[in-house]
């Protein structure tokens, strides 16, 4: 009996541990990075990998390793990640417990998930980013950031988790594109659900299944099963087991509804993309981390996960707000009032998509500084200040007669040290992205 109790709490315990580890990994993102793919969780996310492959340009090849580990794990065990590790799934489970009564037993909503997945992948081919609002790990990581720093309310996470109040794990069974991708891989998993002759057809398993993976005729859906083992647990006759057997390979349940939903999602995303672009002003110049892609590709590649913001050694990377336009929201922008770029390369190492890839120091040009002579105490009041000259790492700021600073535009790399250290209220030297060097 004791053993049974322990088994019952094994999954929640694993989920809590995973949530803790994932949160820790996010907070542990800092210089010096410990691995070549140092945003370990997002680097292992096959959806982020596939959607980001267009931006990768070979430099990103080492990052394939964690994805391979993840995929092989799913090939063997199925969607264990969803049921046992995914923090969003865990929160959905917790909130789902608040759902009173049994309600109507729902299935997989016509496999709409694959429609969403297809739409997301097609969008990615056309370098349009939707993972920022579609990948659970990205959403979770950003939610930790905005919650802990009290900068915003994690609305998307709340909607996902809240949907569990209506249908258990609604997101996981009907929408999540990452889950859909893992589901397809799961078809090869040998750990299938076996039902023996003791089954009396009560279908208690079906009503208890949080993933909608058991049909009215007690057929099991390998692509939906999150291996929570609830069916095994609740079966009054112990007829259910998950011992290894022949994989469910060919059984892909595509439905007309999935195609419809795919088309609708694709249409909706395309329209919203058009709307977002239309209302995002082009003129707003945002300084980007060194090694960023050119602006349009950058906005497509960046999943807004917050890894670079968290890892930035100079504390200069901040998530862009609404003022930079809706399309740029939560993308990394440099705020030289908070810090300056140390050229440590950490942002490029933790970026999971290749939106930023670290550059050698001589290739870095984030922008160009400009002296605002009206504010500068040396130009206006002959004060021997010259902090800017002192802190400039490239000797780009010349101080004629140790007095008035002027800038050599070719030498300036736009690190922002001058702006950060300028003692003048309102800053007499400012860095703009003018002349920046981006990856193409």
């Amino acid at each position, binding site marked *: 009996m004791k053993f049974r109790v322990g088994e019952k709490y094994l999954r929640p315990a694993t989920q809590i541990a995973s949530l803790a580890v994932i949160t820790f990994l996010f907070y542990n993102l800092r210089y010096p990075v410990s691995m070549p793919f140092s945003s370990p969780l997002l680097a292992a996310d096959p959806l982020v990998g596939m959607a980001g492959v267009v931006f990768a340009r070979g430099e990103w090849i080492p990052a394939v390793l964690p994805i391979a580990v993840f995929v092989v794990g799913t090939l063997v065990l199925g969607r264990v990640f969803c049921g046992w590790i995914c923090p969003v799934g865990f929160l959905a489970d917790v909130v789902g417990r608040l759902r009173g009564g049994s309600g109507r037993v729902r299935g997989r909503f016509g496999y709409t998930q694959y429609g969403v997945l297809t739409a997301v992948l097609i969008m990615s081919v056309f370098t349009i980013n939707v993972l920022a609002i579609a990948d659970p790990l990205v959403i979770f990581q950003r939610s*930790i950031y905005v*919650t802990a720093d009290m900068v915003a309310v994690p609305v998307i996470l709340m909607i996902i988790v809240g949907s569990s109040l209506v249908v258990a794990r609604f997101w996981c069974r009907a929408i999540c594109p990452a889950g859909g991708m893992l589901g397809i891989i799961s078809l090869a998993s040998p750990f299938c659900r076996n039902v023996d002759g003791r089954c009396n057809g009560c279908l208690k398993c079906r009503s208890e299944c949080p993933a909608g993976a058991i049909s009215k005729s007690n057929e099991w859906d390998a692509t939906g099963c999150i291996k929570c083992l609830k069916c095994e647990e609740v079966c009054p006759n112990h007829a259910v087991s998950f011992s290894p057997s022949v994989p469910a390979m060919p059984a892909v349940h595509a439905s007309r509804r999935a195609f419809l939903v795919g088309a609708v999602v694709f249409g909706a995303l395309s329209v919203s993309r058009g709307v977002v672009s239309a209302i995002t002003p082009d003129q707003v110049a945002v300084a980007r981390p060194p090694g960023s892609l050119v602006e349009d590709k950058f906005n497509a590649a960046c999943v807004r996960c917050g890894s670079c913001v968290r890892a930035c*050694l100079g504390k200069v990377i901040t998530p862009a707000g609404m003022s930079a336009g809706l399309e740029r929201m939560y993308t990394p922008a440099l705020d030289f009032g908070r810090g300056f770029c*140390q050229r440590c390369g950490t942002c490029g190492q933790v970026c999971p998509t290749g939106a930023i890839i670290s550059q050698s120091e001589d290739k870095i040009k984030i922008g160009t500084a400009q002296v605002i002579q009206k504010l500068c105490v040396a130009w206006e009041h002959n*004060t021997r200040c*010259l902090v800017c000259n002192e802190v400039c790492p490239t000797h780009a700021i010349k*101080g004629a007669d140790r007095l008035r600073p002027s800038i050599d535009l070719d030498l300036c790399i736009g690190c922002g040290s001058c702006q950060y250290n300028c003692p003048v209220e309102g800053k007499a030297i400012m860095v703009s992205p003018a002349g920046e060097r981006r990856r193409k």
Partner: protein
Amino acid sequence: MLYAATVARKLVMLACRNRTGVSGDAMTGRWTRSILERGGWSRRKFLKMSGAVVVGAAGVAISGCGSVDPAAPSWAATEAAQVTARVTAVPTGKLVVCSNSDPAKAVDKALDAHGGLSGIVKSGDRVYVKANFSWAKPAGQGACNHPDVLVRIMQRCKDAGAARVIAIDNTIDNGQLCLNRSGIKAALDSAGFSAVVLGGEGSFEERKIKCGSLSSVMVTKVLRDADVFISAPVVKSHGTTVMSAGLKNLMGIIYGRGEFHSPGPLDQCIVDLAGVMRPDLVIGDAYRVLKTGGPGGPGEVIHPNEVIVSDDPVAADTYAATLLGLKPEDVEHVRLAAAAGLGKADIAGMIRV
């Protein structure tokens, strides 16, 4: 949940800061202590008063009305700062310069010729060494201390009986990056020493200073704990002040250096800071000298292989200027410091080994 946890954490941090923020100790070293005692303050009395302030502050914090401004100095600190400002001359003015191709031997020879550290570092003392590791530049560029020079200085303090020897600096570039790239972290680690990067406004406290329009300066709180305060500057050129050595080095113990530059004036502020925060000993690292392109480099690096030791910061800097091919009067803050009586600019009686 997460909101609640963060709020709780911030509240706890706030409470802690209030409690530590108002303790009365304002020691900067034995020299400051002697000044306090000369002003009729016994160490016992000083500690008693400090203790009273701490207890009072703790009481305030515990009783929940913790509206104490953490940046505000206690009356004791203010008193100490006012007393220190009276003092001018230094007793010995002895200046030693040694050269050796081995950095550690150069330190040893210079310290031995100066008479060792006896009388400066006593058994059980806590020694803080204001080093210079302000720049995330490779070791050879001469922007930071030579790691072996710094380690040897700290080792000599330990050998003299110090209970704890810590290198400090408020760095320009990120402190961790500076320590790594300069090779100082590796050298300190292997010798069993540690460095503290001074940072965060909360870890500094206000001191009265009179300089231009500035009436106060934020000085690191870690020096409250110091029995001995040693300045171990790198001798190098400087874009604004022409030279950076013992006096300029002290700008690495304050917060908000920008105020020295503007409104400033910078050279006068350096001198005024040196009058308030006087080191017990200056050990100048001129093993490598960044002759041009200072303070951050890169620039021309020359190799005098020298170490300068003096308890007179003006004498030490006067000699340092000659290494850069300057006349002492070329460096305005050295000239002003001599004029203010902080030390002797006459280095004729210098010991050279």
